């Protein structure tokens, strides 16, 4: 039997095939972890989900006040990684951590498709 959780996991699996993605998760905007593809980052996924949601919420509060619009994505760039949070419908976020090897443009494009699928599921 296919549960929603299984279907969401499948979306993450598809996403991972792009290459360069070190970690991915689907979380609720309220900070609850829905599904994740764990890797050895040392951070537990629940806390990761909560922090991601906080990041998005701060951005949302800011953009709503400035331009009355919600952010589509948030890209955080560090020395050798990118953290991309992508809004998937009104309740969920997809978040990926991309290493040096990843092509950001391609991944953003895939994220857009994945977000659409997630949106249709929940």
């Amino acid at each position, binding site marked *: 039997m296919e549960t929603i*959780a299984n279907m969401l996991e499948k979306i993450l699996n598809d996403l991972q095939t792009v290459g360069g993605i070190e970690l991915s998760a689907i979380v*609720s905007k309220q900070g609850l972890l829905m599904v994740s593809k764990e890797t050895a980052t040392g951070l537990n996924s629940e806390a990761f989900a909560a922090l991601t949601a*906080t990041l998005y919420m701060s951005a949302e509060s800011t953009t709503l006040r400035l331009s009355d619009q919600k952010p589509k994505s948030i890209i955080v760039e560090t020395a050798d990684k990118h953290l991309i949070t992508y809004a998937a419908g009104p309740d969920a976020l997809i978040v990926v951590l991309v290493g040096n090897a990843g092509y950001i443009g391609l991944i953003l494009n895939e994220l857009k498709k994945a977000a659409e699928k997630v949106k249709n599921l929940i």
Partner: protein
Amino acid sequence: MVETGIPKLDEFLGGGIPKGKSLVYYSQPGVEGEIFGMQTVYNSLKSGGNCVFVVSSTIPSITKGLFKEFGWDIDEYRDRLFIVDAYNPLIGAPSDEKYVVSNPDNIENFNKVIIDLIKELPPSTIVFGSLSTIMDLCGEKETIESVKNWNKMAMLYNHVLVYNFTVWPYSQETLHLIKEELFNAVISIGSIAERVIFGQYFGILKSDWAKETKTSMLFRVLRPGGIKLFIPKILVTGPFDAGKSTFVHALSTRAISVDRLGTTIAMDHGHVDYKGFSADIFGTPGQERFDPIIKLLSGESMGVFLVVDSTNPADFVRAKHMLDITKSYGLPYVVVANKQDMPGALKLEEIREQFNLPDDVPVCPTVAKDKVGVFEAFEVLIEKITGGT
């Protein structure tokens, strides 16, 4: 009484399963239902009882490996655990176990082994790893007849019978018999995907010895650890400098804060493992300029800790206002009266009075920096959330 070892379930069942009774874990496909039977096996061994485990869906050594995965050392209880191998003969492999069902696709073979064991052993807990597998192999009607017989025999010999059953598409008649008639108690296990809450739950469908409880409990399966009751989100809120972050850290086995200069600016996140519960707690900032974030952060909580500084009644108005902006009214909440060790701390009654709290809202005294009272407060809130006694 034999305890099931599933947190909260024993309480709902009035202490456990009485001798001579039978219980079935009735689980939907796709849910981790087999673990329930295993946890009951381990728990009854741990508390000194004899246990029979009928393994019919995989070879016994894999099952033993599973026990290890959950951190349950069953080797220690070798002399009190009797494994019935009803799988190896099916694939033509030799078995190392003392009790073997030589033809697992023939119910008569099961009858012989099980009834011998029932007669031979002193009162024990007999757990069937998968009744549905037996049913698939031996036929629905035949299996049901045998189950009736086993239950009757178990009653005579004072054994406790526990079955794992997965609700595959069997005939309506079979499912009805299992749900309504065959067993003294039925525990239903299912999964929910309610918008963004993903989880598995269990609840009592029927029990002829305990009073009815309508509550369902969310759980998750930890390796190691087994079944833990799961509370996805508990909110910790309260005015500036009341000690919310300290409270989150005192309670958590691991916690993260997003703060600057000692004050939380985004959130605290902590994970609590306590007395069979696994909960994630979210702490909000306290200052008014973060209100928009608090509002967004607080959705989907199952309960709230309202932390207040007992020495600072001037902030109580703000505390009440925070309950309002977190939309927490209607959710179970407890008031955590922190900094009880400070000179001038108000007494609990005074705080209750100043807040004008309804009688059913508990006020818990704590000194979060010394971890005093925090777990007591946690227990009180959990009781409110789970609707226990």
